[in-house]
C-alpha cells in the first residue's frame, strides 16, 4: 500500500481533530493547560469557515431579484449584477481561503465552498431565466424532440446542415430522451439551464480523485478545483454532448492514472526522500491480467464516450498515447482498445460524417492559423464582446503563467505528476488537424484545463511539510500567502466578463422564441429557412422536415457584398420552386454584430431592405423580429 501521509497543513492541528500535542508530549496525552470550552460552542476557526458561506448565500439570494437580465446592454450581465452579487463572490473566496487552512482535517468545508462557487457562478441563469439559455442548447433540445418523435436513429439520412451527425453520435440525446420521458416533461427545456450546475457537481469528485492521485496536500487539491471552476469560462458545460463526454473522459483518465501503473516503473517516485512534500506516491502497480480486467471495466465508458461525441474519443486516444510516453503508463493494450472502439464507431454509426471529414482533412491539415481561430470568421465587436475576448486571452495567459511557474519551481512535483502534464498537452497538436467549426481552440483549452489548474494551484500553494531541504522557504510561503488570494480574485475578475460579457447573445426572450416557433410551425414541409446565423432560439425546430441556410455565416467581404442588395443576393441563390422563410430576430442581430459577422448597422439595413423588397412578403413582425416569405417561381 502506498504511504498515506497527509502533508502538514497550516492550522491543521487546530482543526476538528483537536489540539496537537506539544513537542515531546505523547499523542493522546492530556495537555497541561487545555483551554476550557463550553460544550457545543463554536471555535473561532470553525466560525471563520461557516460564517462566510452563510453570508455569501444570503448576499447571493438577496441579489437575485435585482439582476436585470431582461434589460441587458452591451456588457451583458456584467453591469446588471448588483453589488451584493459581487460581494457574495468575494465573501465566498475569503471563506474558501479560511477553510483551506483546515483542508487536511475538515475537507468538507472546501468542498462546500467549491459547490457554492459553482452555484454562485453558474446558477444565476438556471434560477432566473424564463427561457432556454444559449441558442445552441435549444438546438440540442430540438434534436431530443426529433429523436423522441421518430423513435429510431437514422444516421445515414443526410439531413440539411449535417444535422444527421446527431443521429451518428446520438448517446447524449438518447440519454436525454430517456430523462425527458422518465421526468414526464414536454422536452429538455424545463431543465436544460441547470446543466452547467449538474455537470459541474458530477465533475467535482472526479477532479478531486484525479488530483489526489498526484498530491496528498488537500489545500493543493481544493485550490486546483477552485481554479478549475474559475478557469472553466469556456462555456462547454451547457446541455451538450461535450459536457457529458468531458466528464467521461476525465473519469477514464482518472481510472488509468490510479489503476494502470506498470510494475517496476515507479522507481524513486515512491521515496519520500525524493518526492515533493506535497506529492503522492505512485499508486500500486498492477499486473497484465489485472489491467486487462481494467480495460474490460472501462470498455462501457469508452463505448459511451464514442456514442456521445465525435471529438472526445480523439482527445482520449491522444491523451492515452501521451501517457504511453511514460514508462509508468505504457498501456498499449488500452490504447489499442480505445482506438479500435473509436474506429469501429466511426466506420459504422458515424461513417457519413467521418468520411466527409476525412475528405476535408487534406485542406485543413497543417493550416494552423485557420484551425486555431475562434468562431466562424468575424472579429468580436462591441464593448461587451471585446471585453470578453480580452478577458479570455488574459485568463489563458494568466493560467499558463501560473502553471509555467510551477513547472519551473516545483520540478519534483512535476516529475511525479508528469502524466497530468502530458494529458493536458496532448490535445494541443489537434490544431494541426482540423478547426472543428471554429471551436477547436476552445476544446483544446477545455481538455488542457484539469492539468493547467493543478499546476497553477501548485504555483500558489507551497509545500508545507517534508524535510527542510524540500519544504518551500519561508519567503516563498509569505509570497504565496499573498499571491493565492490575489490570484483567485484576479481569476474571478477574469471569469465574469469571459462567461457573462456576451450574455446578451445567450438570453433569448420567450416572445422571440414564440415568434420563431410560430413561423417554423407554419412552414410547409420542405421549405427553406433563411437566417443570418443559426444562433437564435428554436432555429432548428422541425429540422428534419425543413432545409436551412444561415447566410451570414461566411467571411465578412462576402457579407458586405450581400448587404449591397440583400434581396437580390438571396433570391439569386434560392433553388427554383422553393418556398423560403427569412427569419430575422433580435438575438441574431446581437450575435451577428457581436461576433463581427455583419458590419455595424448591417443587420438593421438588411432587415429594412428585405421588408421593403417586393420579392418578400412580411408574414409577421413584432418588436423581437420579422418573418418574411418568398416563393421562387
Amino acid at each position: 500500500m502506498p504511504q498515506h501521509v497527509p502533508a502538514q497543513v497550516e492550522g491543521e492541528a487546530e482543526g476538528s481533530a483537536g489540539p496537537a500535542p506539544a513537542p515531546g508530549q505523547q499523542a493522546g496525552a492530556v495537555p497541561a493547560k487545555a483551554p476550557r470550552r463550553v460544550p457545543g460552542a463554536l471555535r473561532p476557526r470553525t466560525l471563520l469557515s461557516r460564517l462566510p458561506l452563510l453570508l455569501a448565500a444570503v448576499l447571493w439570494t438577496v441579489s437575485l431579484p435585482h439582476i436585470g437580465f431582461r434589460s441587458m446592454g452591451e456588457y451583458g450581465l456584467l453591469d446588471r449584477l448588483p453589488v451584493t452579487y459581487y460581494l457574495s463572490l468575494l465573501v465566498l473566496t475569503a471563506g474558501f481561503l479560511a477553510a483551506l487552512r483546515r483542508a487536511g482535517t475538515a475537507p468538507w468545508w472546501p468542498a462546500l465552498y467549491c459547490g457554492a462557487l459553482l452555484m454562485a457562478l453558474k446558477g444565476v441563469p438556471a434560477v432566473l431565466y424564463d427561457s432556454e439559455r444559449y441558442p445552441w442548447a435549444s438546438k440540442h433540445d430540438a434534436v431530443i424532440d426529433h429523436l423522441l418523435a421518430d423513435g429510431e436513429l437514422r444516421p445515414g439520412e443526410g439531413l440539411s446542415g449535417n444535422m444527421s451527425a446527431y443521429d451518428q453520435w446520438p448517446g447524449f440525446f438518447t440519454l436525454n430522451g430517456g430523462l425527458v420521458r422518465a421526468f414526464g416533461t414536454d422536452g429538455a427545456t424545463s431543465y436544460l439551464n441547470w446543466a452547467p450546475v449538474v455537470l459541474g457537481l458530477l465533475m467535482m469528485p472526479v477532479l478531486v480523485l484525479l488530483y489526489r492521485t498526484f498530491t496528498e496536500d488537500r489545500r493543493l487539491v481544493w485550490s486546483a478545483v477552485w481554479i478549475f471552476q474559475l478557469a472553466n469560462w469556456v462555456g462547454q458545460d451547457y446541455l451538450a454532448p461535450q459536457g457529458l463526454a468531458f466528464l467521461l473522459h476525465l473519469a477514464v483518465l482518472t481510472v488509468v492514472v490510479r489503476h494502470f501503473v506498470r510494475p517496476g516503473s515507479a522507481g524513486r517516485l515512491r521515496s519520500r526522500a525524493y518526492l515533493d512534500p506535497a506529492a503522492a506516491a505512485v499508486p500500486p502497480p498492477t499486473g497484465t491480467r489485472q489491467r486487462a480486467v481494467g480495460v474490460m471495466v472501462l470498455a462501457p465508458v469508452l463505448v459511451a464516450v464514442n456514442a456521445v461525441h465525435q471529438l472526445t474519443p480523439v482527445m482520449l486516444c491522444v491523451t492515452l498515447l501521451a501517457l504511453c510516453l511514460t514508462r509508468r503508463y505504457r498501456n498499449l493494450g488500452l490504447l489499442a482498445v480505445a482506438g479500435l472502439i473509436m474506429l469501429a464507431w466511426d466506420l459504422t454509426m458515424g461513417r457519413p460524417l467521418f468520411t466527409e471529414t476525412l475528405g476535408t482533412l487534406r485542406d485543413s491539415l497543417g493550416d494552423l492559423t485557420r484551425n486555431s481561430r475562434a468562431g466562424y470568421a468575424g472579429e468580436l465587436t462591441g464593448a461587451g464582446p471585446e471585453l470578453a475576448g480580452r478577458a479570455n486571452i488574459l485568463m489563458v495567459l494568466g493560467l499558463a503563467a501560473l502553471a509555467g511557474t510551477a513547472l519551473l519551481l516545483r520540478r519534483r512535483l512535476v516529475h511525479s505528476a508528469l502524466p497530468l502534464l502530458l494529458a493536458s498537452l496532448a490535445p494541443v497538436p489537434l490544431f494541426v488537424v482540423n478547426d472543428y467549426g471554429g471551436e477547436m481552440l476552445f476544446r483544446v483549452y477545455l481538455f488542457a484545463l484539469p492539468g493547467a489548474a493543478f499546476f497553477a494551484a501548485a504555483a500558489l500553494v507551497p509545500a508545507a511539510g517534508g524535510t527542510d531541504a524540500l519544504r518551500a522557504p519561508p519567503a516563498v510561503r509569505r509570497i504565496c500567502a499573498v499571491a493565492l488570494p490575489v490570484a483567485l480574485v484576479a481569476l474571478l475578475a477574469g471569469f465574469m466578463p469571459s462567461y457573462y460579457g456576451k450574455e446578451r447573445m445567450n438570453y433569448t426572450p420567450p416572445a422571440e422564441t414564440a415568434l420563431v416557433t410560430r413561423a417554423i410551425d407554419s412552414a410547409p414541409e420542405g421549405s427553406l429557412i433563411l437566417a443570418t446565423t443559426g444562433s437564435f432560439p428554436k432555429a432548428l425546430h422541425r429540422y428534419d422536415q425543413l432545409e436551412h441556410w444561415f447566410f451570414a455565416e461566411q467571411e465578412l467581404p462576402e457579407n458586405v457584398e450581400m448587404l449591397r442588395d440583400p434581396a437580390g443576393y438571396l433570391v439569386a441563390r434560392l433553388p427554383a420552386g422553393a418556398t423560403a422563410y427569412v427569419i430575422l430576430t433580435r438575438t441574431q442581430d446581437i450575435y451577428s454584430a457581436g461576433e463581427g459577422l455583419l458590419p455595424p448597422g448591417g443587420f438593421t439595413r438588411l432587415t429594412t431592405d428585405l421588408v421593403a423588397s417586393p420579392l418578400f412578403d412580411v408574414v409577421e413582425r413584432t418588436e423581437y423580429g420579422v418573418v418574411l416569405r418568398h416563393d421562387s417561381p
Partner: protein
Amino acid sequence: MRHVRIRSTPDQEGSPVSQNRQPFPTRQTWTRTALALSGWAALAATALPGGAPLRWIPVLLFVCLGPGLALLYPRPAPLRPGARLEAAALAAPLGLSLAVLTATALFLAESFSGTAFLVVLAVLTTLAAVLPGLPLPAATRGAAERPRASPGERR
C-alpha cells in the same frame, strides 16, 4: 486454524474482520438492498404527474448514481486510501455510460420508451447490486506495493 486479523486503514468501513470474513454484514446487505430497489423506486415515481419534483428527483438520482454505485459497491477489502471517494466519484460516469448505452440500444432496436429505459437500468442495477464490486485493477488482491525497484530498473 489460525485466525488472521487484517489491519484496518483510516479509510476502511466497519470492522475489518467482519468485512473480510463475513461477506454480507448487515450494513452491506442494507446498502445492497437499497441499491437494488433504487431503480424500481424510480420507476414507481413515474406514476406521479409529469414534472413533479417527487418524480424527477428520484429518477435523476437513480440514473446518475444508482447503476454506478451498484457496480462499484462493495469495494474489496482492505480498502485503498481514497476508495470511498473513488466509488462516489466514478459512480456518475459509470452509471451515465450505462444509461447512454441503454438508451441508444433501445433507439437502435426501435423499442425506446421511458419505461423500457428505466426497466433495463433497474434490472442492470439489481444484478450489479447482487454481484461483488467491479474489480478495478489496483483495488484487487495482489496489487499491493511491490518491493522497491533495483537501481538498474529506476528511471
